[in-house]
């Protein structure tokens, strides 16, 4: 078991949390979800966040992505300080620096796959880079499905559309929340392979929350949470080392 103290190297971080506390409720009903968490997510790396239920892994991701406000401490995405941003600032952040992949795919049923993929750019009023768009859909292998609506696609295909949607705007960080949670293992592995490839080939930064050791094994680094604290981290994990670490953490 290797306990690594977080090293702060400002320029390399795509997103970082500094002394973050997240407290829900007050008085007797008070729940501390994050206790003084500091973490740095290196640019161009695939980081997995793991931990048992209630460990605060989703909360950490939500705070990092600016979806949830922290109680204390600071969150940065790239050079932008997320803490204290107005709604307009958050909107700008989401348009320019952050991409999301959800467990529930969350595609718009009224739009075709292509329209769904291009939606973030359309919302931001940016012209898609056709070459990059082509690269992305080649990577996720959706070439012949672009005109289909989500209801005509399988779960795996829908999640590939969601991946493409996250990739197409080349965000600073992509946050993936249990992206394989709703897929069978084959489709799940496909998705994880794409994510891995986009990190290696295009230098995309990805942060993934998962409780699946196999999924975590695709990451460059795994950060383990328990009781709202970072308890350990593991570089270049395999499914076995992750499982060992989980057992150790539980024990």
């Amino acid at each position, binding site marked *: 078991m290797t306990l690594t103290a977080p090293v702060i190297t400002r320029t390399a971080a795509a997103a970082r949390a500094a002394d973050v506390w997240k407290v829900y409720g007050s008085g007797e009903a008070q729940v501390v979800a994050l206790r003084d968490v500091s973490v740095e997510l290196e640019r161009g790396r695939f980081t997995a966040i793991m931990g048992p239920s209630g460990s605060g892994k*989703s909360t950490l991701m*939500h705070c990092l992505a600016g*979806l*949830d406000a922290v109680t204390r401490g600071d969150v940065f995405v790239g050079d932008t300080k997320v803490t204290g941003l107005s*709604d*307009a600032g958050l*909107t*700008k952040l*989401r*348009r*320019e620096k952050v*991409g*999301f992949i*959800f*467990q*529930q795919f*969350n595609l*718009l*049923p*009224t*739009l075709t796959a292509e329209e769904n993929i291009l*939606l*973030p750019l*359309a*919302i*931001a*009023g940016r012209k898609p880079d056709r070459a990059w768009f082509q690269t992305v859909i080649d990577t996720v292998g959706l070439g012949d499905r672009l005109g289909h609506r989500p*209801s005509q696609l399988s779960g795996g295909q829908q999640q590939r559309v969601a991946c493409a*949607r996250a990739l197409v705007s080349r965000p600073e960080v992509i946050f993936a*929340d*249990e992206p394989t949670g709703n897929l069978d293992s084959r489709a799940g592995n496909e998705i994880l392979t794409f994510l891995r490839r986009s990190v290696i080939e295009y230098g995309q930064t990805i942060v993934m929350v998962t409780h699946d050791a196999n999924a975590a094994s695709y990451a460059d680094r795994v950060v383990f949470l328990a009781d709202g604290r970072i308890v350990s981290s593991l570089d270049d994990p395999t499914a076995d080392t992750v499982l060992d670490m989980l057992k150790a953490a539980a024990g």
Partner: protein
Amino acid sequence: MLRATLKSLLARKVRLVLSGLAVLLGVMFVSGSFVLTDAIGRSFDNMFSSALAETDVLVTAKPAIEVSEMEGEPVPGLLTAADLRRVQEIAPSAIGEISVDGARVIGSDGKVVTTYGPPRMGGNWTGEVGGLRLHEGVAPQKADEIVVNAALAKKAGIKVGDQVGVLTTKPKQTFKLVGIFGYEGGLDSRGPVDEVRFTDAVAQELMLGAEGYTSITVNSDKSPAALRDELKAGLGDRYVVQTGEEAAAAMANSFKAVLDVMNKILLGFAGVALFVGTFLILNTFSIIVAQRTKELALARALGAGRGQMIGSVLVEAVVIGLVASVLGLAAGVGVGALLAAYFANFTSLQLAGIAVPAAAVISAFTVGIVITVIAALLPAVRASRVPPVAALQEVATPDRPLTKLTAAGAIVTAAGGGAIAYGLRQQSLWFLMGGVLAAFVGVALLSPFVARPAVAMLGRLFSWSVPGKLGRLNSGRNPRRTAITAAALMVGIALVTGVNTIMTSAERSMRGDVAATFKADLVISGQESPGVQPTFDPVLLPRMQQVSGVDSVVATYADQIAVNGKPAYAQVQTDLPTVARLVSATTVAGTIAQPGPGEVVVDDNRGHALGDTVTVRSAKGTEKTYRVIGIFADTNLFGGYQFGADAIEGMRGGQPTFAYVDLADSADPAAARTALEGLLADSPEMRVQNQKEYIDNQTGEVAQFLLMVQVLLGLAMLIAVLGVVNTLALSVLERTREIGLLRAIGLGRMATMRMITVEAVVITVFGALLGLAVGVGLGSAVVEGLADEGLKELVLPWQQMGLYLGVGAVVGVLAAILPAIRAARTNVLGAIAYE
């Protein structure tokens, strides 16, 4: 099960409020109408019975001309001096009274005091009897003395000692105001009625044009009933003999017929509002059932039967209907009381207390609950068909095909169209209304089929922006929901458009006729003056003739008559051939010459043949026979019975009410007009108008009528707006995740609001277009059906239609405000975080 239903109901307060509100507004309208008419009715009861409280028996003559209630006031019969003497032989205290509508006081500002409807009575002062009390001054003794009631004196700004001009059936005469009177109980007026009282002889000359009385009041120490029976036996059947109570009841009854019509009109509009409300409730329940699919399926999986499922939805409907009825009834009582107070204030009526008539309560609950339950029936059945397995699957309600719905819609629309056509041909209002109702339902059923392409087309307008495009796609997403929401708006807009189309066509047809056939350069006519035909002095005619530039002046005398027992209007032209030329009348038979004594010229719509003899009873009650010497073609401009000068003596007043003025080609119209206006200085209600003004004036009422219809249908529109709010609110709720996602990938708050607004506007503009189409359809059907009645051309009110479309769009924007704010406030994290 009941408990679960109630809990789920409480958990969804917003939807409870919104769908309840529609019912509430409709119920409010219904019960408010009843409360209002009840309060006014009882107030008039009180007024009539207090007016006759000191009268034991009232003797009147049978009406000279009987007229049904819808056609106007009957011409009252006259009692002669001999009649009064006969009554006095039986009861010496009998007093002959004169009281006739049409005494117009000219106020201190030189303007005629008007009442906007209620009568302005002229009569004789009979002393402080019948509840009259002299407040100041003395009774009129000389021919140039009058007394007026206190409220009138105040309105006119006149006081005892003033010289006051009064218009009656005769031209303006000036009197000295010697007294001001009021009524038992310290009242300044009896309701909205103004009263001028002269001496007996003057009242007879000015108000009746004959020596006689309109009623005889009898008091004695006998019981009223005994006195009545005695008088009846002694007088014979030419007289109506009633006790004071009976007479008051009879007066109140004839008045109630008017109130009844008013109530029916208001209820008609309430019906439209409730019909629209039905769409809203149906839609709300459909959405709720769709949203609760999982919950319902779970209940089925746990063993709930189909009946229980239907019951659960219906119980929800009953609860909403009940709550809305109670609140609607309360609001209706409030609104009714408010309007009654306003009415009483406006008409200085002593308002009887506000009561809640049983009809209001019964109709409120019946209408409120029945309508809600009927509207919820369809969604309830759908709820019972949710398969238990749906509890276990991701919600994916397949789009059910619209074939059946569309076919049903086509059939219902066709049936409605047929009923409308039949109703128009048979002049059956019931078929017409039923047809319109069926047409609305039919079009509502057809609208989902139309919705998709229509919404796609409309949405193009907004597709330039991403939020616009998303909004457009959302509104096309569920064609049934979009369609039914739009259909609610359709009803109101279709009705105003239809009425407007008919009115515009009628107006245009009339204008067309006039432009083609009306050749008089100027007309002299009376201003609208309720209950009275303004007149001018015939001695002016020769002087008008001498005005420079005037070629000819033809005066018209008019009054009611009965021809062979049927009510009609008599006209006397001082020069019929000239009028015939000025209105381009065409001769059908005989000649259109000036009728001599005992001769009449008539239009071809009255069923008379040349040489026929007709019996004419004049307004003064005299009978005479006339021979038809000429028949001309009836037009919008000119028709009816044209008599010679011998008929004038049978007319009350016997003054001209209208004149055609033909100018020489070389004349200066403005100068001639000024000169004529100068001559009419003593007849302030008469005015000189050119052709255009005259026609504008004739059609002016159309605009007012339309305005009223639009205001009353505003309630239906309001309910339709609630429907749009409801649909949007529920859609926003349903799509929380989606909106959260859009926010997560960078859609700003304003853009989110814009998306919802576009969705709303697309729905309402679709509804407005549908309404315009249906309205034009209904309107042209009626115009087509009434082609024989003089509606020659179909004219669409484009300007108004544009306005309604604009209203539709604005309504959409307004309806979107709250749902849009709600959507913009969507908590991104809460929306997308699973579980």
